[in-house]
């Protein structure tokens, strides 16, 4: 069962600076964040606020300039087997079938073929792609590809799933459907999810906790717990109220930034 006292991800005083031609740019400044077991956390912010950078550092693909990130108490110094990541798009290997893609992580860890195949079929069933095991990614729609990417991320049984705007390239209808399905998967598998998005609507629909990042230099501004029961009704008054509050916060942050 989920153990809310267990903290999977801990981000402490993390600052990230990039060297550019125009000099040093501070992408993130003094970011602090904790993600508890089983939580669905959305990292919300405008484009260029460094939310993807933060996700990548948690995933071990980037290194903070200062500060520390720990996963399960251990300092991140590269991708951890406890975490997987779902990218926005184009991360499936087009020369591999869907099943071969989903089994990729297991293959890298030396899991034998038979065992892999069984696990892959289980995950494909979970995301509703069991009939597409031997199709190629280019034969699938955008939504189906992302389902395959989610299945691949689940196959290695990580504790934490990092998702970088995974539905950002999908049309609105598909997107809503994928959000519903992701929540079902999350409830079924009890994974901890850190989900990056720039859509307030998406964050309010999905998250237990919304972390709002300010524009550059990005810093965690507001952490909102959303305690609406699921499935959430986007048309309800409460939903609209929360969305309005968050939009208000973002607007204030942006005008505040302009005044500096």
């Amino acid at each position: 069962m989920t153990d809310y006292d267990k903290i999977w991800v801990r981000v402490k005083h993390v600052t990230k600076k990039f060297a550019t031609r125009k000099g040093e740019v501070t992408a993130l400044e003094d970011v602090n964040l904790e993600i508890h077991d089983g939580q669905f956390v959305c990292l919300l912010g405008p484009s260029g606020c460094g939310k993807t950078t933060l996700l990548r550092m948690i995933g071990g693909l980037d290194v903070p300039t200062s500060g520390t990130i720990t996963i399960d108490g251990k300092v991140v110094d590269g991708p951890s087997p406890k975490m997987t990541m779902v990218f926005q798009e184009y991360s499936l290997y087009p020369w591999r079938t869907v099943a071969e893609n989903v089994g990729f992580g297991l293959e890298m860890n030396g899991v034998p073929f038979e065992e892999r195949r069984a696990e892959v079929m289980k995950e494909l069933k979970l995301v509703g792609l069991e009939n597409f095991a031997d199709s190629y990614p280019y034969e699938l729609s955008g939504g189906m590809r992302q389902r395959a990417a989610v299945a691949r991320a689940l196959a290695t049984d990580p504790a934490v799933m990092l998702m970088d705007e995974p539905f950002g390239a999908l049309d609105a209808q598909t997107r809503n459907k994928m959000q519903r399905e992701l929540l079902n998967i999350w409830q079924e598998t009890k994974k901890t999810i850190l989900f990056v998005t720039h859509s307030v609507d998406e964050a309010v629909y999905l998250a237990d906790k919304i972390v709002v990042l300010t524009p550059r230099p990005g810093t965690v501004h507001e952490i909102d717990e959303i305690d609406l029961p699921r499935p959430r009704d986007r048309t309800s008054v409460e939903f609209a109220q929360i969305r309005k509050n968050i939009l208000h916060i973002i607007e204030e942050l942006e005008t505040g930034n302009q005044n500096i």
Partner: protein
Amino acid sequence: MKWYFKLILPALFIVAWEIAAILINNSYVLPRVWDTLVVFTTPFADLFGCGSLIDNSLISIYRVSLGFIITCIIAVPLGILLGRYQVLEDFSDGLIQILRPIPPMAWVPLSLAWFGIGLASIEFIIVIGCIFPILVNTIDGVKRVKKSWIETARIYQAREWQVLSKVIVPAAAPAIWSGLRVGFGIAWMSVVAAEMLPGTTQGLGYLIMYTYNWGQVQMVIAGMIAIGIIGIVMDQFFQYVQKRKFGWEALDK
């Protein structure tokens, strides 16, 4: 487009050739079409003592295959390393850029000085001719592998050799293959040119020089046609494999 559309221009070309041959009326300059095609009706016949069309074709194909395979064994792994490790590319780029524009024929004197007259010289010319397109395409293909593909592999704890063998090589394979296609075309031209050098006694390049010295221009042209046909067949093979094996590249948009 109808299939025969592509044949219209070659047909006109042959007609123009025939008209020109009739007007010139000198078989030492331009033989008639039929006199040339007749050479192909006896592909196993000895042509003025230089061997048959088939024998000389086979020897040229053998030579080009040998040189091409040697080049692949050198250039593809080297290209993968140079494409993957920037420091190696920076280190070697200057030398590659200097050597690349030198045509294979410019290497002939040195080749003769180093390897003498014979197979080794011819193979050297072939290797020099086709190594650069293969190397450069491989480097480029490896460098253009999507970052998200490599990062995905890293997320799943792939070791470096797994990143190379499971992601970079398959992802760069279409680019490598098209480098091989270009490289083979150049290798084929190089072998024919190398066979025209003094001291060679076999091959299609030798055949066209030898029969020319005997004034048999119809045999020269027949040899040229054979060179063209073998080139087309090999190129079609490369294209066929490209479509069959690497179709995902065009479809993955």
